[in-house]
Structures are given as structure tokens and as C-alpha cells.
């Protein structure tokens, strides 16, 4: 009967094979996982900036002012964007972005520390002719880096 024990060489060989198999698998997990995260964050930032720009187009001209970096989750209701147009008295059935009403989205925003900010430049040409250049910034944290998405819109008083 063949009942010999395992030699050190066999054990090392098995380990080497295991490592050779695991390294590409883990790197594959790593790359694809990071890409999914980046894509998800970028899509959310772009969608949020677009939604804010739509709101700016619709809101009163004089109400468009600078806004420092504001967390999207758990921020006080500033009657402006937070919580992304879901006002407390909204009749559309939308909910506020907090842990109790929208836990999934709240967790996502909290995890990545999504913030938005507005930088408004107002130019008056006289006779009521004014234009506001508004820079919309969406910032978030991604794999240890601070990311930013920028877009600009121009709103005329006329």
C-alpha cells in the first residue's frame, strides 16, 4: 500500500500553485471592484450636478448665491438643494435623505462624503442686464482621494 507522507517540496509546490492562481484572481477582483465604485460615484456626481443646474434655471435669479461645501446627507434643510429637492413639505411623495427615510442612499452619501458647492459670479451690465456665472462643484472621497466634478452654467436676469 502506498501511504507515503507529503514532502516539503510537494507542500511548497502546492502553495506556489495556489499563489499563482490567487494573484490574478485577486487583482481581477481589485480592478473590477474599483472601476465599479468609480463609475458609480461619477454617475451620481454628474446626475446630481445636472439636477442642481436644472433647479438653478428654475429658481429666482436673486436667490442664486454662493454656497459653501454642504454635505448632501444629514444637512439642515436650507430650502435650496438639500435634500436634493426633496423638501419636507413636498407633496410628490419624495423623501428626505436621512438614515430613517432613505437609509440606502444616505449610507452611500455618508460613506463617500458627497458634498456640493456653488460659486456664483454676478456681472451687471446696467439697465437690469445681469448674468450670473455659476460653478457647480460636487466633491466626494474615493479610495483615499478627494474627487471633484465641475460644471458651469450661465443664468441671465432677463
Amino acid at each position: 500500500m502506498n501511504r507515503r507522507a507529503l514532502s516539503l517540496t510537494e507542500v511548497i509546490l502546492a502553495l506556489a500553485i495556489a499563489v499563482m492562481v490567487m494573484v490574478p484572481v485577486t487583482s481581477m477582483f481589485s480592478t473590477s471592484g474599483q472601476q465599479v465604485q468609480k463609475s458609480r460615484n461619477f454617475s451620481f456626481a454628474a446626475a446630481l450636478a445636472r439636477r442642481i443646474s436644472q433647479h438653478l434655471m428654475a429658481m429666482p435669479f436673486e436667490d442664486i448665491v454662493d454656497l459653501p461645501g454642504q454635505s448632501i446627507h444629514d444637512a439642515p434643510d436650507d430650502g435650496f438643494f438639500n435634500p436634493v429637492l426633496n423638501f419636507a413639505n413636498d407633496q410628490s411623495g419624495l423623501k428626505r435623505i436621512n438614515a430613517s427615510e432613505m437609509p440606502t442612499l444616505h449610507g452611500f452619501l455618508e460613506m463617500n462624503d458627497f458634498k456640493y458647492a456653488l460659486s456664483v459670479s454676478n456681472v451687471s451690465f446696467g439697465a437690469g442686464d445681469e448674468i450670473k456665472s455659476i460653478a457647480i462643484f460636487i466633491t466626494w472621497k474615493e479610495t483615499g482621494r478627494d474627487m471633484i466634478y465641475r460644471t458651469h452654467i450661465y443664468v441671465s436676469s432677463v
Partner: protein
Amino acid sequence: MRCNPHTDQVQYRSMKSLMEEFARRTQALLSEPGILERRPAWPVVKAGAISLAPFADSVVTELKPDHALIFILALANVGSKRDLLLKALFKRMLTIVPSDDFVRLLSKLSQAELKDNLLPYIYETGNRGAIACYLAAKLQVYLAPEAFQYFLNARIWHQTDLMNLCLLVKPEESKALCAHIESVIPMVEHPHIKEGYTEFRNILFNHLACEPVHPEVDETQTEKSPVSPAQLLASKPTPLHEPSTKHEKPVDKTSEPNKIPIARQPEPEKVAAKDNRPAASDSQAQTKASRSLNISLQESQTKLIIPLGVIGLLFTGCLFYFSWYYSDPLAMPNTPPKNARAPQQWIDSVSMRPVTAKFLSADKDYRMGELFLTRDKFAEALKLFEDALTIDPDHLQALMRSGYCRLKLGDNKAAAEIFRRVLKKNSGIDSVNLYLARISMTENNLEAAEQHYRAEYALRNDLPVGLELANFLAKTGNQNDAMELIAALQEKNPGKMLVLSTEAETKPEQGGEQP
């Protein structure tokens, strides 16, 4: 001959008391250490066995198996009487897996006795065959190679039994037997028998059988446990050669085990019919896969346990790590500190270039300057662009716009200098070469103007720049080049009628259109 009931009753009581006494002595014998025949209680047991000799058949069938075996060992030396008793004992006790004590006692029997009295039961299906095979393997009984073919033909084999059967092959004969079995397999017609052959050969060839495997016992076939001496007193005597239980088949001379090897070779069909094969094959099919897997694992785990364990640990560790690292972030709140300072630099998610706070501040002025440009307020715009450049001298678009404003304000020299700085920083920006060409035209530097026009056309390759270059070439006397360029542009824009401008038309405006 007429029986006397009173005499039977007396004999019966006498036998019971003797058996009870013998059981007690045997129990004492078994509790003593040392070689069986040298234990202090052995002579007493032997004397008790002799006194029970007239009731030998009853003793063998009614005492506990190990007590009965000691009775046989103590009573008779090797011979036909002992063989008969052993056969009766095996027939009775092979329905349940014997204890290790009983197996140790069996080792007192010679190989010849085991072959003659135990091995014939291997032919039987059910528990007897399986347990007989197991006992033979336990007792290291080796058979002649030709015997295995008879066994394999006799019945349908469970894999555990085949494993035990393989242990009856002498190691030095296994290769030859494998070769012999291989040659026999094609000639076996019955599929189930053939399967047994193949499996037996595989187990033997791969040395899968290392130790006797505990047989699978059908509980429905097991007998009741032996009756205790106290119970015996309350029961009726069992006649010699009668079955100990009612459901057991009566001993039949034709079915009694024969010597090994036996020239009896039951036909597979008969075996199948005898064993009620459809039911048996169904249960075999259901359990075959699991049994096969279990046995393979048992045999291979000693070889593979370390590398498999290490690989398993590594794999599990990696899985845990990656499932943690890439798990849904929503499920693991990781709140950043509330009072964290604003970063001084971000990574632009579109261009993946760093964006500083200084750049953003300069960009704000630049955007305001752009607004003034929409109303052609170049002086105001220039101030804002220069403010932007004060904050961030590397703001290339603000630099270019400041040059444009200076060009529009008539400061060609400063504008040209700014545009050259822009080109030095990035030669791929649109319109810079065009402005420089126009400035060179106004300064009557035709060579520089042509160079900048051509650079701009090479960069943009569009119709307005092409037309301006063609007009410039025509004006400077390069009619052929101008016509050639017009033809090329006409080919690219077939829907338009392209002609060279008159001299009045070709006079470049101050600064041209806004890029």
C-alpha cells in the same frame, strides 16, 4: 420414540443452570488479562464447556457470540465437530457487526478454519456477506487469486465490501490479479457484475483499500440480541439444528457454505432474481455516489489534507478580505470626521488632473471675464483675466483671453508676447496661431504670418482658417498654392462655392472672431 416430558424438563433446567454458570465463568475469563489459555479462569471455563458438550448446538445458538466462541474454543480441538459449531456460530452472528473483543477471539482460529467456516458466507448477499468479508479482512485472511472471480460472480457487491475484499489479496499478487481481472471484464455479460469487476479492479489497482471498512449493515436483517442467561430460564429449549429465531431461514444443506475455492458459480440472472435485484439496484444507485465519494475522501485525505487545507485557508482568507473590502459601502458606515479640513487639492473626475483651490479661485475670475466678453467689454474682461492670472499664473485660458483682449484693445505687441507664452505652454490651443498670424500681417512680417497660418490650419484643418490662408497666399503672390488650397477645400466642401477674396476683403480685421 416417545418423549418423557418430565425428563425433558429436568434436562432443560440442568442445561440452563449449566449455561448460566458457564456464562458467569466466561465473563470472569474475559475480564482477566493475558493469553486466553493461560488465564486462571481458563481451566474452569474449559470444564464448564465439557459439561455443556451434550447441549453444544443450543449453547452456540443461544449464548452471547463471544461466550459461544469461547465455548467452541474450550470444547473442541480442530475437527469436524468444531467446524460444525463454528459454522453455526457464524451463521447466527454474521447479521450484526461483531465487537472488537469477538474479532480478537476469532484470531484464535487458524487460517484454515476461517477459510472453511467464515469465507463461504461471503457468497451470501445482505449482512452476512458483508460482515463475513469485513471479518476476513480484519483477520487478514489471504486468498488464492482465482478465488476472487468466484466471489465477484456470486453477487452484486457494495463498494465497502469490495474494499474489504481487496484486502484479501496478497500485496505481491495484486498486480497479477489486476491484469487477470482486466482480461476477464470484457467477457462478463451482466452489467452489475461487470461493474463489480471494474470497481474491484480500480480499488485494487489504485491501492484504495488500506484498512477494513466498516460494512453497511441493513438493520432490518439484524437478529435480536442474544438472550441473557436469566431470560433463557424463562424460555423454551431450542432444538438442535433449528433456527434461533422464527424469521430466520431454516438451515439448508444446499445453502450451507462450502469449501474455498468453490466451483459453484451462480449465474448473474439467478443471483439477481434471488436478491430481488430491482429493489437492491435502486438502493445501490441511490447510495453509490455518496458512498464512492466518502470512500475516496477517506483514502485521499491523508495525502491531500495539508495542501488542500493551506489552499482552502488562503482562498477563504482572500474571499473574506475582498468581500469586506469591496462589499457594498452602504452596509458599512465609515463616517468621515465632521470637522475635517477642506482639502487643498482634488482630482478632476473628467480629466483626472489635480485641481487646486487656487485654480478654482482664479477660474471664478476667468468666468466673470468671459461674461464681459459677451458684451464686448474688453477692458473689464482684461482686468478680470489679469486678476485670475495673479491668483494662478498657470491658468492658461485666462492667459490666452488676456492676449485676446489686448489684441482687441490694439496692443498688438503685448498680445503677441502673451500668445507666444501660451504657445510655449501648450502649442495645441486653437486660435493662438491665427491671432499671431494676423498680428504678423499687420506688422508686415509675411514669413511669420504664413508660418502661423499654416500651423493653425494644420491644427484645425477647417474651412475658415483654410480660406484665410488661401487669401493670404494669393495676396503674397503664391497664386498656385492658393488655388491648390482652394481646390482642396472645395473638394472637402462640395456644397459651397469657394473663391479667393478681393484685396479689400482680405484685409484682416483687428483680432478676428472670438474663438
